[in-house]
């Protein structure tokens, strides 16, 4: 084999705030499992030196190198709705320079980058080394700003990446469509590789002894326009009228937290809609295992790993049509994010009909069980292979 991949990321467990960190880990570790040699570069605010090297291990113990370069880059981090305060464009450029310096002595065959934050780093290295570059698209500025006016500088950077990449991997057919239609990327340049799942809710025993005697409907994700949290409240208001005992939980934080609390209270939903903040690990497991319905009303969602996590826990999933995850979960209930009447109706049906809910939960659990990072990694490797073949030819 002897293929060496330089992977550039921007968040990774144990320090992550969103789906990208989880996805990146799934990709890297399964590629390692399948025999690829990976050098993973990541930003870190806490490195004692400007560059620090660690050895991580895949689940079966295969090692891979992780190079941390000191950087403030944490675009979605922060608690209690407090967003990262740095100049993200400046930090992205600085990160590119530092990554370039950190890997100047490294030998590799291919560059694999993730989203616009790693584009300047990838471009710089590609220009210097002439190595082929794969760009993995987990989300676009179009998604993050819910189709509204994106940040022009960010768009500029991501477009450069789409143009320069030798291959683009989109996390869903939906994202491929966005790339082709909104960014005019040639159809044949984009391959769809759905995310996998590495969430095992039964790997530990957790207590679900909370919110007793009431239906629980959950939202997991950043509280920001892209994720459509406002529609969750509109739906909650309608369900509350019919089933006032229902409790709705927002698990996440973001720039809309305060506004959502005001809206929720204004709608008379105190004691009905709860704000749990960003949950991970055991707290998140507990929520999935307690939930009766999971809702993801995203305005534009390239994939939506959280829906897959809920499905693995056997929770029926209601998602917007404008999300990628629906492509791999045929039993999910799909609707328009703005159609809160239908959303409320669907959720009421799930709450009221226990048999239907359990049946759907079991079905979606088995669908989710078949979705693995192993399969995603195989497809990614096919793309590597093709690229390097073409390169040699």
């Amino acid at each position, binding site marked *: 084999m002897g293929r060496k991949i330089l992977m550039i990321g921007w968040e990774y467990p144990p320090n992550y705030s969103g789906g990208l960190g989880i996805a990146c880990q799934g990709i890297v570790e399964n590629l390692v499992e399948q025999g690829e040699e990976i050098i993973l570069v990541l930003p870190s605010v806490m490195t004692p030196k400007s560059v620090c090297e660690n050895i991580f291990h895949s689940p079966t113990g295969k090692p891979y190198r992780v190079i941390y370069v000191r950087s403030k880059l944490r675009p979605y981090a922060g608690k*209690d709705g407090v967003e990262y305060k740095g100049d993200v464009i400046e930090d992205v450029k600085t990160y590119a320079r530092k990554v370039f310096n950190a890997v100047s002595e490294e030998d590799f065959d291919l560059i694999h980058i993730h989203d616009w934050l790693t584009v300047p780093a990838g471009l710089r290295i590609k220009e210097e080394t002439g190595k082929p570059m794969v760009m993995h698209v987990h989300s676009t500025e179009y998604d993050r700003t819910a189709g509204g006016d994106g940040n022009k500088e960010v768009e500029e950077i991501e477009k450069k990446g789409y143009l320069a990449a030798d291959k683009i991997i989109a996390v869903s057919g939906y994202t491929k469509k966005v790339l082709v239609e909104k960014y005019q990327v040639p159809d044949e340049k984009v391959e769809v590789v759905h995310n996998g799942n590495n969430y095992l809710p039964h790997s530990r025993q957790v207590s679900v002894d909370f*919110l007793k005697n009431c239906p629980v409907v959950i939202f997991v994700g950043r509280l920001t326009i892209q994720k459509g949290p406002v529609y969750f409240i509109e739906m909650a208001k309608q369900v509350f009228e019919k089933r006032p*005992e229902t409790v709705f939980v927002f698990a996440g934080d973001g720039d809309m937290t305060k506004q959502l*609390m005001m809206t929720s209270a204004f709608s008379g939903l*105190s*004691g009905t*809609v709860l704000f749990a903040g960003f949950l991970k690990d055991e707290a998140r497991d507990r929520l999935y295992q307690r939930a009766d319905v999971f809702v993801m009303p995203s305005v534009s969602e390239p994939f939506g790993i959280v829906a897959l996590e809920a499905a693995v826990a056997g929770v029926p999933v209601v998602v917007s049509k404008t999300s990628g995850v629906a492509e791999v979960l045929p039993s999910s209930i799909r609707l328009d994010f703005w159609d809160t009447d239908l959303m409320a109706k669907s959720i009421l049906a799930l709450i009221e009909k226990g048999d239907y809910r359990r049946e759907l939960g079991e079905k979606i659990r088995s669908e989710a069980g078949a979705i693995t990072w192993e399969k995603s990694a195989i497809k990614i490797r096919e793309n590597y292979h093709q690229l390097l073949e073409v390169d040699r030819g």
Partner: protein
Amino acid sequence: MPENLDFENGKVMKKVAEKSYRPMLTLLEKLMEKEDKFKFSVSITGVAVEQMERYTPDLLGLLERLAKTGRVEFLSETYYHSLSSLYSPTEFILQVSQHKRMIEDRFGITPKVFRNTELIYTNNVAKLVQDMGYKAMLAEGTEKVIGRKSPTKIFHSPSGLPLLLKHYKLSDDVAFRFSDSHRSDKPLTAETFAHWINSSYPEDEVVNLFMDFETFGEHQWEDTGIFRFFEHFVSHNIATGGEFVLPSEAIKVIKKADIYSSDSPVSWADVDRDITAWRGNSLQEDTLTKIYALETQVMASKDDQIISDWRKMQTSDHFYYMCTKWANDGDVHAYFSPYGSPFQAYSNFNNAFTDLKLRIVKKNDG
């Protein structure tokens, strides 16, 4: 409640006791011995007494000794420092009765004059208080209600309840402006203050100085000289012919003047003198509406723990912490909040409220 969850209560009570309650009560006891013409009135909630019992029992000993002098009037209020007067007459009457029993049992005094939470007044509240048999009530002497009339007379509600109005200018000279570095005559001396008071009203009227107990040592720290000022003021006032009078005495000797009438709530809070500090945004309005909407179910549960928890959740501070008026008053709010923001305060209350709601459902259905 498990001990660890109560940690913050203990911490705050001990801190404020150290800085304010203990030194001021000790000073008051000393003044009672030294000056036999000195009198004062005090109001303490049931929840404060419960917390003193638990964390600073020596303070109750001090209060009990003061009560025995016969020159300290204990006022009536709601046991839980709640806004129940604005939401549920039934609940209001129950909380006032509970407080009255507590004052009688502990201090051997039956309160005769009522002071509502944060001095909140409406004509309806005055009527309820009058019907409960109280002789008078305290209220804010704001121009919003009395215009340019002097608050040194005794007013009365439309239903005829005598009202003692807070002289907010002179009260706030001590409570808020004592150590204000912008004032020209800093520091305020006992002589100056006594002079201001004596030039504010004729012989047969009264200046009502109402302030938070925490003015002494907590709002105004010890190093401002607040304790020395108070001690000197009391002696100086008596020496120069000033008289201290208790609320229940004042209403007997001072003639009634005008009507004080307001259908919308008046309080002593902030520059607005209304209740927007507790009910000024959706977070506050909805949680208040929701907590009082539970009344029937709570009472139907007949569960003492549920009833007591529900009442503790009515304490006005919970809603004060959710205040989003961030002007001058906002600083005051932030200083007294244990939360990082009004939204954290809301979220925490929201969780606790949901839990209470589910407990009630379980109890009443099961």
